[in-house]
């Protein structure tokens, strides 16, 4: 299980792009941190989530 924004989810073995898509995030409107390190967008496909990973997804909304 992987902790995503504080909730345990079954995404171990999936990559970040798959996790974002399953959770209905738009990958151009987020910042993703895994175990306290930012993951560059270019690595969303390559980075595979493991059991006990802790993920923070920050979602940006428009307006300024």
């Amino acid at each position, binding site marked *: 299980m992987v902790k995503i924004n504080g909730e345990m989810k079954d995404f171990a073995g999936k990559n970040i792009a798959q996790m974002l898509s399953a959770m209905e995030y738009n990958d*151009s409107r987020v*910042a993703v941190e895994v175990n306290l390190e930012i993951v560059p967008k270019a690595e969303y496909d390559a980075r595979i989530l493991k059991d006990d990973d802790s993920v923070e997804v920050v979602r940006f*909304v*428009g307006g300024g």
Partner: protein
Amino acid sequence: METGDNRIPTREEMYKALEDRMGSELQQKFLKASVAICGLGGLGSNIAISLARAGVGHLHLIDFDAVDITNLNRQQYNADQIGMEKTKALSENLKKIAPYCEVKANHIKLTRENIPDNLSDVDIICEAFDQAEQKAMLVNTVIEVFPEKYILSGSGMAGMQSANSIKTRRAIGKLYICGDEVTDVDDGIGLVAPRVMTCASHMAHMALRIIAGECEP
């Protein structure tokens, strides 16, 4: 009606007035600080004015847009500035408020490629763009390129919901998010001055707290 004394106070008089209000330690910290403001709309123009009033010594303003009539409902420009580059118009307005604040203005569009060259000279970066994709691009690039810098992002201040839902939180490392993180201008709910200014104030205040050495939201 009485007419004001039109003399601009000297640098020493301005610094003394700030020191009397805040103490010399804070005044010195603010004076030495440099903050970049990326995007000069409702968030950025209000952040710039708050920081200049507080006595922040160096502001780096970045925007590629010009003042439009639809900006006047929430952005710190005047009706006679429509059509002017925002960098130029805001520099002009800041000069009247805080004549000794050192303002560097760049009329450019920030991209992944030019961010390293344009943001190396500041301690704190305020992300004050309009579009969610641009916000994400700036925040991601800054965290990757400048992990030592603080970045404050405004996300969620559209519409007429309560101003009390706007908050500051520390999200990832040195990234702070100010806003409700939900209300999206793309949903056609508009932007009104007080709610945008509430978010801008959260960002400006967090910047001042960081400069003062208080890193908790």
